[in-house]
Structures are given as structure tokens and as C-alpha cells.
């Protein structure tokens, strides 16, 4: 990954971390979403749920302190905080489906103006499976999509997803390196534009219709 892309991804992660409230319980997806944990604002107590069966997940253990019985949902060695607990998968997804998770953050192949999300399959090409994503998107109180705005210039925020959906009308917020976009009943509202780009650039990189309010915030880092 080039340094530029890495910086952009960190920018997205940092912005998403501002969405949380004190004592929120959050589930982070693999990849970019995992980075969000590195940017939790000071003073906020945030707890992470890992769908393979742990709440109050700690940091990756130091070398020599790994145990093969504690891993995260990306199958990497992990740890648990003193406040934490372990549980089986049925309980874990009960937490998720039952609305006990304040927010989940996950990546997307496509997202559209009705809040539909596609992130689990490219038919004929890539069939990794949905894992826990469908349950998370259906059950979490708030669904935040974190992704680069386009796929090498090709828009990912569409009028209508054409890949098989992960869930229908569940996305609440889309954060990219260019903008913060909220999904509302009326459509996608452009709330913030990063200081490095113009509203016009965001519109050009987006296939979906954007509702642009008079007071689009400039997102300063």
C-alpha cells in the first residue's frame, strides 16, 4: 500500500472515531475499520466487541504474550480488558442482532443513495462469504461505512448498487477521504467536505445524487 493511500485511510479512521459517544460499544470490521481504534479521542471510554466472542477487546499483545485461545475476528492474536468477557457465537450474534451494539464500522464495495450496502461478493470473481457482516449491518444501532471514495476513479457511491446486497437500507453514514455523507429519508446529504477537496470534486466522484446543504462543513484535520 502506498504511503498516500495509508494516510488517506488514517484520515478516514480518525474522522469516524469522532462519531462515538462515551461508553459506546463498537464493532469494527477487518481492514480500514480496524484502524479506527487507534484514533479514539482522549477522555472517551469506548468498548470493542469482537464477533468471534469477546467484549472489551484489548490491544494486540506484545510479542511473547500471545495466547492461541484469544484472537480477534480477523484471526489475529488479541487480548481482553479487565472489564471484558468471552461468550459463544450465538450470544455474540444475539448482542449484534438484538441491537446491543451502538455502532459497527465496515468497508464497502458499493453503497447507494437508499442506504443499501454491497460488500460480500463479486459474482464470478470473489466469493469470500458474508461472515458476520449481514447480521452486523442489520442489527447495529448505527452503521458507518468507511471506504475510499472511488475504486481507482470509479464511483462506489451509486444511485443503485448492482452487486448483491449485504443489507437493504441500513447504512447511516458514509465516511471517505473526501467527504462525510449522511443517509436520510430524502437521500444522501453531503455534510462535510475535506479541506483538500471542493464540493464539485466530491460530486464528480459520486454517481449518486447528493443533497448539498447551504452550510456544508469544511472538514479540517
Amino acid at each position, binding site marked *: 500500500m502506498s504511503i498516500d493511500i495509508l494516510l488517506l485511510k488514517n484520515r478516514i479512521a480518525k474522522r469516524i472515531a469522532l462519531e462515538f459517544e462515551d461508553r459506546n460499544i463498537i464493532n469494527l470490521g477487518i481492514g480500514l475499520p480496524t484502524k479506527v481504534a487507534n484514533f479514539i479521542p482522549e477522555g472517551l471510554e469506548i468498548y470493542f466487541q469482537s464477533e468471534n466472542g469477546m467484549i472489551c477487546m484489548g490491544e494486540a499483545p506484545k510479542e511473547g504474550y500471545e495466547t492461541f*485461545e484469544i484472537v480477534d475476528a480477523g484471526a489475529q492474536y488479541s487480548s481482553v480488558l479487565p472489564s471484558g468477557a468471552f461468550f459463544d457465537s450465538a450470544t*455474540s450474534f444475539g448482542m449484534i442482532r438484538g441491537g446491543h451494539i451502538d455502532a459497527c464500522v465496515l468497508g464497502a464495495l458499493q453503497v447507494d443513495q437508499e442506504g443499501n450496502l454491497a460488500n460480500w461478493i463479486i459474482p464470478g470473481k470473489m*466469493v469470500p462469504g458474508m461472515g458476520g457482516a449481514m447480521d452486523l449491518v442489520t442489527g447495529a444501532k448505527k452503521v458507518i461505512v468507511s471506504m475510499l471514495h472511488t475504486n481507482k476513479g470509479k464511483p462506489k457511491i451509486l444511485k443503485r448498487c448492482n452487486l448483491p446486497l449485504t443489507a437493504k437500507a441500513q447504512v447511516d453514514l458514509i465516511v471517505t477521504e473526501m467527504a462525510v455523507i449522511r443517509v436520510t429519508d430524502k437521500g444522501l446529504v453531503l455534510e462535510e467536505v475535506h479541506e483538500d477537496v471542493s464540493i464539485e470534486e466530491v460530486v464528480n466522484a459520486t454517481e449518486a445524487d447528493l443533497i448539498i446543504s447551504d452550510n456544508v462543513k469544511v472538514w479540517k484535520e
Partner: protein
Amino acid sequence: MRKVVTKNEIKKYFFDGMSLMVGGFMGCGTPEGLVDLVLELGIKDITLIATDTATTERGVGRLIAAKRIKKLYASHIGLNPETGRQMHDGTIEVELVPQGSLAEKIRAGGFGLGGILTPTGIGTVVEEGKQIIEVDGVKFILEKPLKADVSLIRGSTTDFYGNVIYGGTSNNFNQVMATAGNIVIVETEKLVPAGSLNKESIHTQSIFVDYIIKGGGSNVY
């Protein structure tokens, strides 16, 4: 009944075309010694129920690599390229199930339920061919129960009667799968005398367990 047995004594429960549930999440909490046994016995055309197919060298991924699986129920297969390859060849039939739904299907199987109603998958390909049931105006998918001829479970600490405790995140699917196999075999890391486990902390109660094998498999995660 004496439950602690050798591998030799349980061979008779394995046969071509059988259905098998195997606990573990990306290999964490998979009874590797019992996977070894399935490989040694040379049985084939297995219907495998597992949340993922790990990697070609780890967990149930080894059964895929050895081409022993005919039908697979899983939520995620992306980290074992061999699963995708065999799926495209048509040598393995894959039914992808959302992870939370998979846990509940197994729980329903083990707990004597006719199925479960879940909102996960509504509006996606997951609902295709399934009954949709509306409850108080909300749509749910009827997910039917899953059972297996044999469940292979990995315990961290087990007493001679078959009360099991799972350490850390190694519980995952083990606890539900231990309820849903006609024969349930636990490979345990530690075997302890009856009475030495905290009775409030037991995850799988002895009533569910038929046989116990002292762990001899790889602990390497």
C-alpha cells in the same frame, strides 16, 4: 458410562457421506486432533458445517484441501483459496449462511426448535427460496435447524463426565455445536477430575457430551 476414550474406540462413528459439525473460528478452538482422525480414516463426501474454512493448513481447511468435503455450510470461505477453487470446479457445493444465522440454525437443531426467525438477509440473496414470515409488520426469514451425525468440539478444560469450559475466544461455535450432533466428541486440552470445575462456569454440560479424547492435536494457532 466411561466417556474418556481413545481414537480407536470412536472410529465406528465416521463414514462416507456423513455430516460433521466442527467448532472453531479460523482454527481457533478447532479440535485439530479430531480433524487428524477424519483425515486418517480416509472418509469422504462429507457434509461439513463450520463457520469458516480457515486456511489449507489449519482447522477444517485441511479437510477441504484433502478434498473430503462434498457439501459445505459456512459463513466465510475467503481465507482458504482451495474452497473457492473447488466451489468453482463444482466439486464442492457451498451454502453461505450469515454467521449469526448459522449459529442460530445449529442452536435450533440442538434445542429442539423448528427453526428461527431472523431479520438478517432480508432484501438479499439469502432470502431466496426461504419462507418469509411477517410478525407485527416486520419481515423475518425462517432459517431451518441444522443437525449433524457427529459434532467435533474442542474444550480447554473438561472433567471425566464431559463438563466443558472453553477458554477465551475458543468457545465460538463449539458450545452450540455440542448440542446439535447425534454423537458429540470433545477433544480437550486439559482433563480434570469431576468436581474440580466451578459448576457455575461450565459452558457445555455433560449431558451433551458422548466421548472425550485427551488433546494430542496441535495447539499452534
